[in-house]
C-alpha cells in the first residue's frame, strides 16, 4: 500500500507568507497547494488617491523590484494621458529597469538558487565540497563576491533618477530628471565594470561566446571547451545541477507567457521584435502565438476574495477580501491569473521560449521545462541585456542626454494599462482615473501567475503543477521541492524587515 502523507512547508525563514501543502505518496509529490498567507491590499489602498500616487505607492510593493513597479505605474499613466515618451526617456527608463534585472538575476542565482547546492542532502556528491566553499549561505566565496560586485550597479539608477533609494523619477511622458552627460559617463563606467565581472565570473567567457551556444549539443561543447567555462557559476550550475538531477525536476504545464518589455526607441541600433527588446507572446511548448492582453483574466475560486465565478479581466477586477469559511476550497491570498482561461508560467525561461531563442527552444524540445533550464535562463539573461544597455547609454550620451520628457498635460479621466516584464516575469498595472482620482487599480505580479492557486476549473497554478512528481527523499529537508520553487524565483514579502529576536522552529523549511 502506498504511504501517503501531507507535508506543510513554509518557504521562507520568517514564518510564512508562502506555504506549500504537499501530498506525498511513496516519496513523490502527487498533489500540491500553494498558499499566499499574507493579504497585501495595495489595490485597495490606492482607490480614492490622486491619479499620480501609483508612482510613489507601488514601488513600495517590493524591496527588490521597486523600479519595475514604478515603470509599470508610469506606463499605465502614459496610456491614460496618451503620452508619447521621447526616445531618450524610453532609453533611460529601460536602462534603470535593466539594472534591476541584471542585479536581481545574479543575486538570485548565487545567493538563493545555488545556495541549495551546499545543502547537506548533497554531501554524497563529489562536487559538494566545492559547492559549500562557493555558495554556503553568508560565507561562500561566490556569495561574498556577488554581494560586492552587485552593489555598485544600482548607482546607475541613482544617477538616472537623481535619487536612490526610493526614486519616483518616471512620470507620464518620460522622466522627471535629466541626467548630465558627466553622470551618464559614470554610468558607462559602472556598466562596463559590471559586464567585465559578469563575463569573467558568471559566464567564464565573453557574452558573444555565450550567445553562440544555440543547442543542447552546443551547451555540452561549451562545457567541454574550457576550464574557465566549467569553473564559472553557469558552468557549476550545470555540472552540479545535472549530477543532482535538476534537469528532470519541475516540469509544469508547459505554457509560457511574456507580456513584452523594454520598448524600442523610434531610432536605435538595438534590434527587437514587435517594438520590444523582449518580445511578447504566449507559447504552448515551443509553439509561439501572438500575445493578446485582453485574454488575461483573474480567478478567485480558490482565493480569499469575494467575486465572480469564472475569470474577470483585471481592468474590471475587484480586490475584496472574503474570509469564506469554505476551508479547503479557498486557500490563498494570491488570485489565479490565467491566459485564455489557462495557467501560464512567466519569467526568464518564458521570455527565451517566446523569443524563439535557439538554445532554450532546443532544451525544451529535448528535455521539457525543468528547474535547471529555468535557472540557466535567469543566470544568463544579463547576457541578453548588457550589450543593449551599452548601446542605449551611448545613444543617450551622443544626443547630449536631452529630451527625456514631453509634458502630456494633466491626467484626464480614463483607463490605462502598463505591462512589462519584471525580473520574475509578467507584471501588469491597470488603472482607472475618474475626476483626478484613482477609481480602480489592479496589479498582476509574476507570482500572481507562477504562484497562483487553482482556478475556477480546478486547474493547478504553474508551480503547483511543476511540483507534481518531485521526489521528497527527506521530509525534514525537502531540498528537491526547494529547487522547483526557487527556479520560479517566488516573490515573497521583501517589504517587511523587522529585526526579530529568535525564530520559530518546528516545521520543515526550505533553506540551506
Amino acid at each position: 500500500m502506498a504511504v501517503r502523507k501531507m507535508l506543510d512547508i513554509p518557504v521562507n525563514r520568517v514564518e510564512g507568507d508562502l506555504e506549500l501543502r504537499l501530498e506525498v505518496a511513496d516519496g513523490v509529490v502527487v498533489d500540491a497547494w500553494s498558499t499566499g498567507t499574507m493579504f497585501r491590499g495595495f489595490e485597495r489602498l490606492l482607490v480614492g488617491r490622486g491619479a499620480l500616487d501609483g508612482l510613489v505607492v507601488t514601488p513600495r510593493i517590493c524591496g527588490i523590484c521597486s523600479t519595475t513597479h514604478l515603470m509599470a505605474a508610469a506606463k499605465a499613466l502614459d496610456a491614460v494621458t496618451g503620452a508619447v515618451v521621447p526616445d531618450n526617456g524610453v532609453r533611460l527608463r529601460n536602462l534603470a529597469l535593466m539594472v534591476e534585472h541584471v542585479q536581481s538575476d545574479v543575486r538570485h542565482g548565487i545567493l538563493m538558487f545555488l545556495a541549495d547546492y551546499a545543502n547537506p542532502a548533497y554531501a554524497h556528491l563529489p562536487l559538494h565540497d566545492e559547492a559549500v566553499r562557493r555558495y554556503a549561505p553568508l560565507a561562500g566565496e561566490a556569495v561574498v563576491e556577488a554581494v560586492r560586485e552587485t552593489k555598485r550597479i544600482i548607482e546607475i539608477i541613482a544617477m538616472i533618477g537623481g535619487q536612490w533609494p526610493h526614486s519616483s523619477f518616471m512620470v507620464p511622458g518620460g522622466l522627471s530628471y535629466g541626467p548630465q552627460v558627466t553622470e551618464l559617463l559614470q554610468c558607462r563606467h559602472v556598466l562596463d565594470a559590471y559586464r567585465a565581472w559578469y563575463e569573467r565570473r558568471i559566464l567564464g567567457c565573453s557574452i558573444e561566446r555565450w550567445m553562440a551556444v544555440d543547442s543542447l549539443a552546443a551547451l555540452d561543447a561549451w562545457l567541454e571547451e574550457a576550464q574557465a567555462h566549467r569553473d564559472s557559476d553557469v558552468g557549476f550550475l550545470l555540472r552540479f545541477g545535472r549530477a543532482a538531477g535538476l534537469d528532470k525536476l519541475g516540469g509544469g504545464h508547459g505554457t509560457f507567457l511574456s507580456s513584452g518589455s523594454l520598448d524600442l526607441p523610434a531610432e536605435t541600433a538595438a534590434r527587437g521584435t514587435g517594438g520590444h527588446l523582449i518580445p511578447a507572446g504566449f507559447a504552448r511548448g515551443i509553439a509561439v502565438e501572438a500575445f493578446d492582453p485582453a485574454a488575461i483574466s483573474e480567478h478567485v475560486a480558490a482565493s480569499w476574495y469575494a467575486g465572480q465565478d469564472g475569470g474577470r479581466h483585471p481592468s474590471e477586477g475587484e480586490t475584496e477580501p472574503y474570509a469564506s469559511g469554505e476551508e479547503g476550497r479557498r486557500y490563498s491570498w494570491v488570485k489565479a491569473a490565467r491566459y485564455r482561461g489557462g495557467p501560464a508560467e512567466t519569467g526568464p525561461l518564458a521570455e527565451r521560449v517566446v523569443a524563439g531563442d535557439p538554445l532554450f527552444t532546443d532544451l525544451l524540445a529535448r528535455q521539457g521545462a525543468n528547474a535547471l533550464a529555468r535557472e540557466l535562463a535567469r543566470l544568463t539573461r544579463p547576457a541578453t541585456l548588457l550589450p543593449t544597455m551599452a548601446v542605449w547609454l551611448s545613444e543617450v550620451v551622443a544626443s547630449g542626454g536631452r529630451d527625456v520628457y514631453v509634458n502630456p498635460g494633466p491626467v484626464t479621466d480614463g483607463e490605462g494599462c502598463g505591462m512589462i516584464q519584471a525580473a520574475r516575469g509578467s507584471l501588469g498595472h491597470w488603472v482607472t482615473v475618474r475626476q483626478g482620482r484613482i477609481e480602480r487599480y489592479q496589479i498582476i505580479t509574476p507570482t500572481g501567475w507562477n504562484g497562483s492557486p487553482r482556478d475556477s476549473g480546478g486547474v493547478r497554478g504553474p508551480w503547483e503543477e511543476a511540483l507534481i512528481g518531485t521526489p521528497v527523499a527527506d521530509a525534514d529537508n525537502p531540498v528537491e521541492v526547494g529547487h522547483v520553487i526557487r527556479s520560479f524565483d517566488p516573490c515573497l514579502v521583501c517589504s517587511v524587515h523587522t529585526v526579530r529576536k529568535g525564530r520559530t522552529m518546528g516545521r520543515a523549511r526550505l533553506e540551506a
Partner: protein
Amino acid sequence: MSRPARIICVGNRLLPGDDLGPRVHDLLAGSALPDGVELVDGGLYGLDLLRSVEGAGRAVFVDAVAGFAPPGEVVALGRDEVSALAHGAWGHDAGLPHLFHLLPRVCDGELPEILLIGAEHPADVAQVAARALAEASRP
C-alpha cells in the same frame, strides 16, 4: 574632513508596526542636523544599503524590532548582536541581519561603527529619534 555619521532609517511607511524608521526619518528630516550627521531614507532595502554605509564613520540604523524589550522601550543593538540573527541563504525577506553579517567582507574602505536603534511597536517616535541623534552625534 572626518567621515560623517549616517542615520539610516529603514522600514515600510505603509505598514503600521514597521513604519518606525520612516517616521523617525520624517521627523529628523524636518530638523536641523548637527554638523557631520547625515540622514538616509533606507526604506525597504537591505543589501542595497551597502553604498549608504560605505564612507561613513558611524552608521546608526533605525528600525522596528521585536522581542528585545517591552514595546516602546528604546534598545541599542551592536553589529554582532544583530548579525548573529542571520541564518540561512539570503532571500527576499533578508534584512539587516544579513547586511550586518556580510558587512566586514563586502564594505569598501574602513568599516564604520554599526549600531541599530529600535523599539517594538508602539513606540514614541520622538524618543527613538532623539536616541538615534544622540548616538550619531557622540564623539
